[in-house]
C-alpha cells in the first residue's frame, strides 16, 4: 500500500498541495482525478520522489520514502514502474532495448533470459514481433504499450500512470485502460492512475481521489461518483456536453 500523509508542496508563493492525505491499495486501480492545474501531477511526482515534499510523509508499505536518502530510495524505485504522459521512451533505442533497459541495469540475467522476458511482456501488451522498431516508427497507442511493457518488465509492486490516455482516441484509450486494469489484477500491483478522462474513471476506477485546488475534496469509487451531491465534483464529472445530456 502507498500512503500520503499530510503532504504540502509549494513552488514559491504558489501553494500547490495542501495537507493531502490518502491511501492507495494493492490489487486496485487507484485514480487521482481533477481539473488541469489542480495538483494531480505534482502529487504523483511527490509520491515517486521527483519532487521533494515540503512537509508530510510518503509511505510505501509503511517504509517512509520521504525520509530516505538517495541510496535507500533506489531500492524502492526498483519496485516502481511508471508510465509517463508522453511515454518517455528512449529515442536512441529500439523497442526491445527500451524494454530491456531495466533488466540490463539491475539484473544479472543472461541475454537469452532477458530476451525471453522482453518477448513475454511485449506479448502481454499485444506488441509481439515489434522488437526492432524505433520509437519514431510507433503510433501513440503503441508507444504507450511499449512504455507499459518497460514499466512492468521488472515485476513492479507499484505502478504509476500519468495521463495514460492523453493524445489517444477513445477506442485506443479504452484498450490502454483495460490493459492497466488487467495487469493490476493479474500481478496484484498497487496502481495509481492520474487522469481527467471520465471514460477511464467509469471503467477502471476501483478507488478514486478527487483533488480540487490542491486538496483531496472527495474519495470514493466509480459506482459512487455519479450520485454525489458535491458541486465541485459534479462540475468536473459532468463538465462535457455529452455527460450533461446523459445526466438529463
Amino acid at each position, binding site marked *: 500500500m502507498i500512503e500520503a500523509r499530510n503532504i504540502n508542496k509549494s513552488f514559491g508563493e504558489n501553494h500547490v498541495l495542501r495537507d493531502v492525505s490518502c491511501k492507495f491499495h494493492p490489487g486496485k486501480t487507484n485514480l487521482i482525478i481533477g481539473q488541469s492545474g489542480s495538483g494531480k501531477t505534482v502529487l504523483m511526482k511527490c509520491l515517486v520522489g521527483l519532487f521533494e515534499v515540503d512537509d508530510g510523509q510518503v509511505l510505501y508499505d509503511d517504509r517512509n520514502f520521504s525520509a530516505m536518502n538517495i541510496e535507500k530510495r*533506489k531500492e524502492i*524505485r*526498483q519496485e516502481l514502474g511508471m508510465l*509517463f*504522459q*508522453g511515454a*518517455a521512451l528512449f529515442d536512441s533505442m529500439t523497442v526491445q532495448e527500451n524494454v530491456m533497459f531495466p533488466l*540490463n*541495469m539491475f539484473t544479472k540475467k543472461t541475454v537469452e533470459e532477458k530476451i525471453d522476458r522482453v518477448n513475454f511482456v511485449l506479448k502481454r501488451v499485444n506488441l509481439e514481433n515489434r522488437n526492432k522498431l524505433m520509437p519514431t516508427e510507433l503510433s501513440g497507442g503503441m508507444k504507450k504499450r511499449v512504455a507499459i511493457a518497460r514499466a512492468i518488465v521488472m515485476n513492479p509492486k507499484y505502478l504509476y500512470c500519468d495521463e495514460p490516455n492523453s493524445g489517444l482516441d477513445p477506442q485506443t484509450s479504452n484498450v490502454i485502460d483495460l490493459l492497466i486494469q488487467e495487469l493490476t489484477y493479474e500481478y496484484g500491483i498497487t496502481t495509481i492512475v492520474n487522469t481527467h478522462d471520465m471514460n477511464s474513471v467509469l471503467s477502471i476506477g476501483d478507488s478514486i481521489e478527487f483533488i480540487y485546488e490542491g486538496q483531496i475534496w472527495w474519495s470514493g469509487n466509480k459506482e459512487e461518483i455519479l450520485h454525489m451531491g458535491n458541486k465541485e465534483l459534479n462540475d468536473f464529472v459532468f463538465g462535457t456536453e455529452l455527460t450533461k445530456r446523459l445526466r438529463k
Partner: protein
Amino acid sequence: MLRPISTIGSYVLLMRRVFTRPQKGKLFWQQLFFEIDQLGIDSIGIVAFISMFMGAVVAIQTAYNIDSPLIPMSMVGFTTRQSVILEFSPTVISLILAGKVGSRIASQIGTMRVTEQIDALEIMGVNSANYLIFPKVVASVLINPVLIVFSMWLGIIGGCGAMMFSKLVSMHDYILGIRYYFEAYTIFYAITKTICFAFIIATVSGFFGYQTQGGALEVGQASTKAVVVSSIVIILFNLVLTQLLLG
C-alpha cells in the same frame, strides 16, 4: 549578482552526482565507445578541414610578413609549427568542438529532459546524471587529445602544401623550420590544455542540457548557452593555463 553564483553552485552539485561509480560497468563501456564515436570520430572531418586550411594560412601570412633578408625563410616553418601546436590546434579546434560537440550534448540531454526520459531513468533508480554525462566527459577527455594531435599534424602539412604551391618558401627551408629547436614540452602544454578544454565542453554542455526546463524553445536556448559559456570558459582557462605552464 547572485545568479552566476547560484549557477556555479548548481554545476558543482550536478558534478558531484556525475562523478560517481557507474551503476553497471558493462553499460558504461558501451556508452563510452558510443560517445567516442559520436563526439570524436564524427568530428574528424571538420577538424581535418579546418586544421589544413589554418596551417596553410598561418604559413602564407608568416612568409608574407618576412621582409628582412636577415630572417631566414626557415622561420616560416618554425612559426607555423609553434603557432599550430601552441595555440591554433588546442584552442581554436577546441572552440570549434565547443560549438559542434557542446550543442550536440546540450540539445540531446535537454530533449531527454523535456520529454521526461530523464525522469524515467530516475524513477527506475538510475543516477541519470552519471549515466548520461559521465561517459561523454570521459569520451571527450580521451578522444579530444587524439583529435588535437591529428590537427597539429594536418596544420603543419597544410602549411607545407601552401608553401609547395605558392613557392614562397622552399620545401627544404620549411622542413628545416619545422624541425628547428623542437621542445617536447610544447606538446605536453597543448595536450594539457586540450584535456582541460574537453572537460569544460562536456561538463558545461551537460549541465545546461540537464537543467533545461520547458520545451523546444528552451532546448534551443540551452544549446546556445552551452556553446557560449563553454567558449568563454575555454578562453579564460586558456589564459590561466598558459600563465601557469609557460609563464
